[in-house]
């Protein structure tokens, strides 16, 4: 009897898992797609204010974070390649570097947001209420979009931490690495969304 149950649980289809991940990525793209739509509507409506507001953001910090995420995307791909070649040690190192990059990204983000909070610029603050509509919407979108993206960074990190320990326990190995592959796919998505957020928020001035 239990033999049959075990059989159900042990059913494994890597192609199905990857297909599932791709479909989930579609849904994430559409989630952000809604925000990009709102962004474009208001940017057309208040292009002057958007232009001026984006001057307030630090392009250097944004560019630095872009580079960090691009590097992390590369290292997670390298971790996967290492795993496929059954190099457990190198896979762990590369996942570690990816996680470090992710933490660094959040660290920078913390300073970026922190500076704005320090100046009293955050959703619901008195300063925000004084801004004209265009500026208000720009900063609302800024906090909303980068905040949601940061949340995805945290989700991606959680997934990669799980992967890290699974690699360590040899649950992920050169025969069965679909979880790491899916983690990497998700991480690329997080990177990709930032690639769009960066120019839309930082480079429009």
């Amino acid at each position, binding site marked *: 009897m*239990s033999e*049959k149950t075990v059989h159900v649980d042990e059913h494994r289809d890597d192609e199905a898992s990857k297909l599932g991940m791709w479909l989930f990525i579609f*849904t994430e793209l559409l989630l*952000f797609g809604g925000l990009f739509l709102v962004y474009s509507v208001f940017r057309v409506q208040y292009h002057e204010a958007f232009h001026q507001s984006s001057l307030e953001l630090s392009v250097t910090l944004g560019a630095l974070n872009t580079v960090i995420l691009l590097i992390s995307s590369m290292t997670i791909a390298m971790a996967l390649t290492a795993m496929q070649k059954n190099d457990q040690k190198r896979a762990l190192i590369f996942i570690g570097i990816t996680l470090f990059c992710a933490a660094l990204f959040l660290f920078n983000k913390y300073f970026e947001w922190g500076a704005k909070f320090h100046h009293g610029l955050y959703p*619901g603050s008195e300063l925000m209420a004084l801004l004209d509509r265009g500026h208000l919407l720009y900063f609302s979108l800024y906090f909303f979009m980068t905040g949601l993206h940061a949340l995805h960074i945290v989700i991606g990190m959680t997934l990669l931490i799980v992967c890290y320990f699974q690699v360590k326990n040899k649950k992920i190995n050169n025969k069965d690495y679909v979880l790491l592959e899916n983690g990497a796919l998700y991480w690329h998505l997080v990177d990709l969304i930032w690639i769009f957020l960066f120019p839309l928020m930082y480079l429009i001035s």
Partner: protein
Amino acid sequence: MSNTTEKIEYVSYLDHQGKYKGIMSWLMATDHKRIGLLYMYAIITFFFIGVLLGLMMKLELLAPGETIMTAKMYNSVFTLHGILMIFMVVIPGLSAVFGNFFLPILIGAKDVAFPKLNRFSWWIFIVGSIMAVLSQLLKDGPPDTGWTFYAPYSTTTNSNVIMATAAAFVLGFSSILTGLNFIVTIHQMRAPGMKFFHMPLFPWALYATAWIQLLATPVIGITLLMLIAERAFQIGFFDPALGGDPLLFQHLFWIYSHPAVYVMMLPAMGVITEIIPTFCQRQIYGYKAVAISSLAIAAVGFLVWGHHMYTSGMSDQARWFFSLLTFIVAVPSAIKVFNWITTMYKGSIDVQPPFLYALAFIFLFIIGGTTGLLLGSVATNVQVHDTAFVVAHFHYIIFGGMGFAFFAAIHYWFPKMYGRMYDIKLANISLVIKFIGFNLLYFPQFIIGVQGMPRRYFDYPEQFQPAQVISSVGGFILAFGLFLMVYNLVKAAKSGAVAPANPWKGSTLEWQIPSPPSLENFDEAPIIKVNPYDYK
């Protein structure tokens, strides 16, 4: 599985003893059949709460002025009725219940592609439902925005909108995961030899539905998040007083919520497409046309959302364009209706309850569909926009369509799910009562709608009273019919006569296995070579 020549002993999924015992064997179940039943029990419970709220509204509308509740209370009641019925009953409805139960069996699989994800979807469905209930009970008072949460009212009212929208968000997440699961299941788990065009048509409908769930639901997700942020932080995406655009909310809302209507309807059409060939003992007419029309409805359905907004201040170009697309979406729907009717031609029809439900479905769906064309046309829409006419049209489609298809599906698959048969005569009587009650309830609303009775109003001028009284009486007749149906089915599940494996002489895979099915459905994977509706 070491010895494949030895026949595996048959144990029904209801009696199967796994790792967990008692109630936990259900809550922790990954078996698609048990999850299907869990969804069914939850959905039927919510449905009856929704019915009670509907009856409360009907009582209020018996006479002009305040009858049993205040205007504010009435707003809350129709809002809760909408949220329950839309997000917790009809959107998950057929695909979560019968899709879960029968999709794997119909394509010859042992389970869905991700059984644990399936269990997770069910859990978050319950979490979302609890949140929806909580939104009614928390101290700010129940939301009074209607299920559409239109801004700017929803961003400014003091009621519990945040909890209600968060509930809808969580329920949407559950819907996405179910859709994702079904798409992967259909791609990866079909039985050996079963090509896409060998699948029965219910899986085809579920496939189209799953794509809508997957691609449209994230849009409402982000919209509701924006609404929550706007309420929490005075952001002003949608509130014109803060520089936002309420029309933007309506667009984003309907980009999801119109396709969501097809999430409700497509599986219903799929069920009917299974039932009609079985009871006519005849190959479905135009198999490929029916299969592809499901995808066509899903695809075009994404592009018609603007017809909810003709009076919202869209440009004229947008209005005629959306109107045109709305008429186009009627074409694949009509293809299905014609093919169902043509399938009956020269068939050896066996008149049984599921078939009668299917006929009731077609009748009500035609009324709902053709009145939909009136609403799709800009000129007539402006006349009847936001009137009882829309209420009647919507309920003919969703209750008369999806609801009656749900009843049809229960009566069709009941002997397979429980291995027992219900009282056929009582089933027919309850159908007739429901059918009469339904038409009495909703048809008068077409008439007073054209005459100008607005929807969502708790008061009305005296001239509408006769129609409102007929409608209310119909509501109670319908509720009695529903009660009779549930009584019949519950009694049958407990002590009905044992049903044979194939009581309706169906040709699809679910009828080739014992009732109720065993845990893994098939002793060995079936090999498919012929089309699913091969009647001699």
